[in-house]
């Protein structure tokens, strides 16, 4: 099986959307834990060392969400303590934790998706349906790494000029603000220049054609089939209430027979991208060592 990165862009998009959609719709501990772990594994394999910041962000997100939710939600049977006449409950903490985990899982999967879906792939997927919005999305996505690179350049320039003093948190926060201000004015200007430049090159004067070197192989069909069917099964069963989890007022898991199979199915589709990635990496290494 080809990795998602080397599959047809349709296949990679459908797979990632299926996994994240299921995670967002079924917020059960049994599904979020594999989603988070599978997402983290997949993202780390794709991003390598550069994903460190995302890991820190996701960890913070989970912790903050678990701490903040009980301040606003007071539902739940197990009262941990009473803060200013408002009960702080274990259930609310767990709901916060689950919300944080959902967000973290989605961030990981979409982080992986942006690494897989380069702008040409994005244009291939959406170009036929809506070329303008496809271009817009691709342009917007391009802007994210561009901003990062530009901000680094501004920082370096200011350091070279002796304006930017690294050292303690207070001064670096102050300098970051300066950099941010320079960055926003550049971004606005750049947007206008980009638009002008595109108009000057004749954009929107006629139909655009795309060259897309993405054949649709049998294994792409397998990816799409496996993920759409699994997601449909999972979402249907949890919508019917066969398998589920209620947090308020008391944490109760529903679902008797085959619930292990239900959760195993989801764990399988969560870990599959990472597993295939790992397998291909191992194979590559093995082939090199042989010659």
């Amino acid at each position, binding site marked *: 099986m080809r990795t998602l990165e080397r599959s047809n862009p349709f296949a990679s998009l459908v797979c990632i959307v299926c996994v994240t959609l299921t995670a967002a719709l079924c917020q059960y501990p049994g599904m979020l834990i594999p989603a988070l772990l599978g997402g983290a594994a997949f993202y780390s394999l794709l991003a390598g060392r550069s994903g460190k910041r995302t890991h820190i962000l996701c960890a913070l997100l989970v912790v903050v969400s678990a701490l903040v939710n009980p301040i606003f*939600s*007071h539902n739940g049977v*197990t009262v941990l*303590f009473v803060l*200013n006449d*408002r*009960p702080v409950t274990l259930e609310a903490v767990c709901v916060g934790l689950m919300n944080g985990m959902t967000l973290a899982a989605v961030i990981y999967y979409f982080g992986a998706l942006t690494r897989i879906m380069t702008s040409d792939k994005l244009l291939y997927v959406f170009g036929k349906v809506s070329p303008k919005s496809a271009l817009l999305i691709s342009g917007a996505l391009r802007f994210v790494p561009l901003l990062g690179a530009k901000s680094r350049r501004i920082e370096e320039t200011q350091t070279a000029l002796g304006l930017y003093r690294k050292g303690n948190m207070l001064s670096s926060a102050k300098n970051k603000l300066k950099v941010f201000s320079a960055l926003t004015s550049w971004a606005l200007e750049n947007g206008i220049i980009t638009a002008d430049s595109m108009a000057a090159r004749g954009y929107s004067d006629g139909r655009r054609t795309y060259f897309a070197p993405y054949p649709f192989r049998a294994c792409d069909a397998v990816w799409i089939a496996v993920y759409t069917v699994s997601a449909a099964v999972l979402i249907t069963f949890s919508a019917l209430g066969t398998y589920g989890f209620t947090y308020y*007022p*008391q944490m*109760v898991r529903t679902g008797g027979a085959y619930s292990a199979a239900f959760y195993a199915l989801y764990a399988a589709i969560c870990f599959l991208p990472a597993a295939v990635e790992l397998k291909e990496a191992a194979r590559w290494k093995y082939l090199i060592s042989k010659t």
Partner: protein
Amino acid sequence: MKRSLSFILACLLVFALGCGVFAADETADYLARSSGKADIKEYAASLGYGDEWSIFALARFDVSFESYERSIDENREKLISPVERERCALALAICGGNAEKIASIAEGAAGSQGIMSVIFGLHLCANGAELAGTGAEKLVNDLISMQLSDGGFALFGTVSDVDVSAMALQAMAEFYASETVRASAEKALAFLSSAQKPNGGFISFGNESSESISQVIIALSSLGIDCKADERFIKNGKTLFDALGAFKLSDGSFEHVAGGGVNRIATVQALCAAESYKILGKPFWVFEKEDPAEESSESTEEESDTESSIEEASEETSAPEGSSEETAEESVVSGAVSEQSESSKEEPSQEEISAGESAPEESAPEKTDGGKKIKLIILCALALLALGALCALIIMHKANVINICVIVCLFALLAAVILFVDIVSPIDYYGRAESKTDAAGTAYMSIRAFGIEDKDIILEKTAFEFEENATVYDMLVDAARIYSIPLDVSGTGAFVYVRAIERIYERAHGDLSGWVYTVNGVSANVGCGSYYLKDGDVVEWLYTTDGIDRTGTYENP
């Protein structure tokens, strides 16, 4: 000859023990006097719907409850909640109501809503009532299955409660022949013994109340355990009666909490305890139709018997008098509590996932500083986090003065916030209200849900004292604390908004559903956080599903 001997023995015992069993007749007289009745007989004859606990307490006196059956007939449509129906059926059985009527009132109630309905169902069985669809055996099994791992019982949740455990034991006493019941009762006794405080009392729902002690006395006496002799229930030489005596006032009445003033519910339950101790070894809740005097001379136990005989003897000589204003409209504490608990019990078939399985506060002696402990834990966690952050700084070679200052200031700010917010442990919070030093008046409040989510009367009309400038919301918080009603609110001060009471949420039953309140039958046009109470105000909280004020459908009791 034997009687006079026992009388002398009893006198000796009473003197030897100092404050032993208080005189039950004094307490009974207090009840009669405070209701404006000449004596107990007249008082008993006036008892009606809502006075069930008084009937249980006076069942073994030589009185008849003439108006009760009629009162039940009149209020038949008000009997909705299962526990209330069972309680009324039991009271009716004492009053000699006919078996068919009793069966129809209690129909389908036993075991249908939580532990209290099981307990009262067992009481009904023990008194020979026929319960359709269930039986003593099934109910006993239900009760035992509700026992928690530490041996106690609870209305809901996993933290055992003294009151509920004692009431479960009272029901077990009626079916003590069974081996499994004995084993279960032993565990529950061990729990109660471990929960007893050094002064002989108990803490239930967060505070030390006389009702808990009364309930434990009834439970022990029903099981045939002499609480004055059994060393499991004597702490530092203090017996349960010593602890109960601390709540007694000079006129024979009892307080709910020490220094809290006369409380009718506490008084009635203390009378039940005294009555139960008189018939030590017999279940309190089995009301045989027999002459009380005959009963006392029948038993051959020396201690309890002798004491009861003097109490009985002095019963006739009591000098009743006087007038006192109405207090009868107050609801009975355990009644209210049991109604809250109903339907909070989850289906046993569903798998319960509870991380709070072994709550650390369980029967720990220093419950009262739980809030401080929680604060300490949070502060320790913060300190650890701060240390971790500092370590990270050192590892990343960024440990300069300003960085360290920033981290320290940040955590100091968080610590200050934690120190200044009010954190209370649930055990300290629920079951008691802040003591009111300068009460500005008394207002009444009731909470009704009109059958939403199987909950009807969440709080019967209950009197609350309030301080100067107290709002309706303050009173609601008081009620929520005292009767452990879960509350969910948003906003603060004058802009506070009640989202849920007893976990019934706004907009859970239609877009226009939610909690509204009326004062003296009139819908208020300001939020509950800015309506200031006046003396004698009657506040009703109602759950509406259509935005329509339904005050009219709820007659004031």
